[in-house]
């Protein structure tokens, strides 16, 4: 096997010729205040096979704004490491100029101003242009989709993922894995996988729940450029816990580290030249998994939405994180010889929508998919004077608006909103359309419930979610952010164990401390329980925004974070 030393040499060799990484080229561009498609795609071919990775597109067919997190804390061994480095620290770590295109694409620094300058990112028609260009240069390419593809927009919700299936088929994906796909339910997933998808739906860790036996194709072996390349799929491990298990009761998931090792050993025994893992584990889980499972050359990670400009090397494995929402496409050229990877060259290609020409065929397909819903999508509901974003460990401004809507429309003291990592961004001055509201709420279990909880239950819920995020063992992390709260203030010490992280719970309206024995009215959405009742969350928000007309949010000071 390749040693760490050899690996670093390979990496350095590439760097000596091309700068620190694909990103090294950008500083020049920033200085010129100009970007061109050719420069974004510039890549000197390397080795004999290319992997193209997209992940966590969340059904964003059109270009969007997506503000990267300001707070993304790492705990345990991950403390202070990528991807838990944000803002100015991130710029310093990767030697990126503030105000440059890469600073805009990769961090939250000065986001509003830079977004106005550099414009929206993503768009599947632009992604198609990039994919076609890479394939033209490298016919021996494999295009892999890490999942969270069929969910996240109004059109994907209304078509039960059909728009995304059609687009990904047209893009020519070679294999995918899954997470939110399952929230359309077993029947719909099977219908798509069995009769519509033109490529395999891989998941070595998807098991039959009753017999505990593998239930989906675990891997696919591709023959490219005279090489045999195994791509192993790893679906999101905590499906029935983080999402409603009743929608897919036939299946069990889990990290199943020993199963991953078994499958790697199986394809190695078949004599493949390269082993690639297409994973939806999340960054920290994958970093741990590849330190324990031997024989994976490249792991393409997903789920936690991290965009990292350089591969992370763990032992003999390189870990690639390609961001979310169509903002980036990763190109990874590999030199594979004698049954092993000898070196790599990598570039995280940012999809600046105003720079990359849309692929005409894909643009037409996207328009056709959207046409039946155009009027509904584009209807203006209100305007925002505040920057609206979600991503970050604690409340984003979109969450504050959603919690305001939930409390006001459902007449509750406290609002809870899920800490999902998807949800696009709106700039100050933007209109809020119905589609924008769906982009931060779309799901098949969006009922906005209203209930009563004791102070004790509230604390238990908060502690439980905090442990999903801040457990020092990545295998116990589910990859979401902290539950968002409205009407409730709290302190959190992220360095403590479960049960002692959360304190100082209080109602923001009165400042009154939460009493463990007292009951409070609580409203929220995205309950994983079957039979949850209430209006759809997007209707609740729409009604609230119509009443207020213009959104103006004060900075949220209700969460105090310590132990960083």
């Amino acid at each position: 096997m390749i040693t760490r030393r050899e690996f670093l040499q390979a990496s350095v060799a590439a760097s000596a010729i091309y700068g620190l990484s694909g990103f090294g080229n950008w500083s020049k561009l920033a200085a010129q205040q100009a970007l061109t498609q050719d420069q974004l795609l510039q890549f000197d071919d390397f080795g004999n096979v290319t992997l193209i990775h997209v992940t966590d597109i969340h059904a964003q067919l059109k270009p969007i704004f997506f503000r990267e997190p300001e707070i993304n804390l790492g705990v345990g061994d991950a403390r202070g490491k990528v991807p838990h480095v944000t803002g100015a620290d991130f710029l310093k770590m990767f030697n990126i100029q503030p105000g440059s295109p890469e600073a805009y694409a990769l961090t939250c620094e000065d986001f509003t101003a830079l977004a106005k300058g550099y414009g929206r990112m993503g768009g599947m028609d632009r992604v198609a242009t990039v994919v076609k260009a890479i394939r033209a240069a490298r016919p021996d390419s494999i295009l892999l989709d890490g999942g969270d593809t069929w969910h996240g927009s109004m059109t994907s919700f209304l078509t039960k993922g059909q728009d995304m299936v059609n687009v990904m088929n047209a893009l020519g994906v070679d294999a995918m894995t899954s997470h939110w796909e399952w929230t359309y339910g077993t029947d719909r997933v099977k219908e798509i996988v069995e009769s519509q998808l033109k490529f395999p739906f891989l998941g070595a860790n998807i098991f039959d729940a009753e017999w505990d036996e593998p239930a989906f194709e675990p891997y696919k072996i591709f023959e490219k450029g005279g090489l045999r390349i195994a791509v192993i799929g790893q679906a999101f491990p905590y499906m029935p816990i983080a999402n409603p298990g009743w929608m897919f009761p036939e299946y069990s998931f889990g990290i199943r580290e020993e199963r991953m090792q078994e499958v790697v050993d199986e394809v190695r025994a078949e004599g493949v030249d390269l082993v690639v893992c297409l994973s939806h584990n999340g960054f920290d889980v994958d970093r741990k998994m590849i330190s324990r499972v031997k024989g994976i050359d490249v792991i393409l990670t997903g789920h936690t939405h991290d965009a990292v400009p350089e591969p992370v090397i763990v032992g003999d494995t390189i870990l690639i994180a390609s961001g979310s929402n169509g903002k980036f496409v990763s190109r990874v050229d590999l030199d594979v010889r004698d049954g092993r990877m000898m070196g790599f060259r990598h570039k995280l290609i940012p999809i600046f929508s105003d720079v990359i020409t849309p692929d005409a065929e894909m643009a037409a397909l996207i328009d056709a998919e959207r046409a039946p819903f155009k009027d509904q999508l584009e209807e203006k509901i209100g305007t925002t004077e505040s920057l609206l974003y979600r991503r970050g460990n604690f409340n984003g401004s979109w969450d504050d608006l959603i919690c305001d809507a939930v409390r006001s429309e459902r007449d509750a003291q406290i609002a809870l909103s899920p800490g999902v990592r998807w949800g696009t961004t709106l700039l100050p001055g933007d209109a809020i359309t119905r589609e924008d509201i769906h982009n931060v709420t779309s799901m098949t279990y969006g009922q906005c419930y209203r209930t009563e909880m004791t102070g004790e239950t509230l604390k238990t819920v908060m502690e439980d979610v905090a442990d999903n995020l801040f457990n020092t063992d990545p295998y116990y992390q589910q990859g979401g952010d902290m539950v968002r709260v409205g009407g409730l203030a709290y302190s959190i010490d992220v360095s403590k164990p479960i049960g002692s992280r959360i304190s100082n719970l209080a109602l923001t309206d009165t400042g009154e401390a939460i009493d463990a024995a007292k009951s409070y009215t609580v409203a929220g959405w995205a309950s994983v329980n079957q039979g949850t009742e209430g209006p759809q969350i997007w209707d609740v928000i729409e009604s609230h925004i119509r009443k207020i007309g213009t959104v103006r949010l004060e900075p949220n000071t209700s969460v105090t974070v310590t132990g960083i």
Partner: protein
Amino acid sequence: MNLSRREALWVGLGGLAAVATPGAVLAATTEELTSAFTGGAAPGTDGITLTAPEIAENGNTVPVSVSAPGAVAIMLLATGNPEPAVATFTFGPAAGSQMAATRIRLAKTQDVVALAKMADGSVKQAQATVKVTIGGCGG
């Protein structure tokens, strides 16, 4: 508690007996059960593999399997349950392999412990933390 095929699948033919621990009048503690099983021997940690999910998908039925080549008996304990004893599997000389798999109910987040007694009287131990969560919010 009866173990049907659905609840317990075991590998190995002949000479294998599984004894589900009956509800005791007084629940024995993990320490009492451990010392009774080991006879005071300090357990080693190699040669035993316990496989359990990190986070239970359903705390009412958590798949757990344990393998200890050469064992004559394997005891499974759920240390955080009101009754920690889960089952003791014994293997006769004709057993093809010494491995057992079952599903257990876990009342809360806790360590599941497997102890294996070898033919020479030595003992091996493995444990795994299984989190029983109320559900989170996936990204």
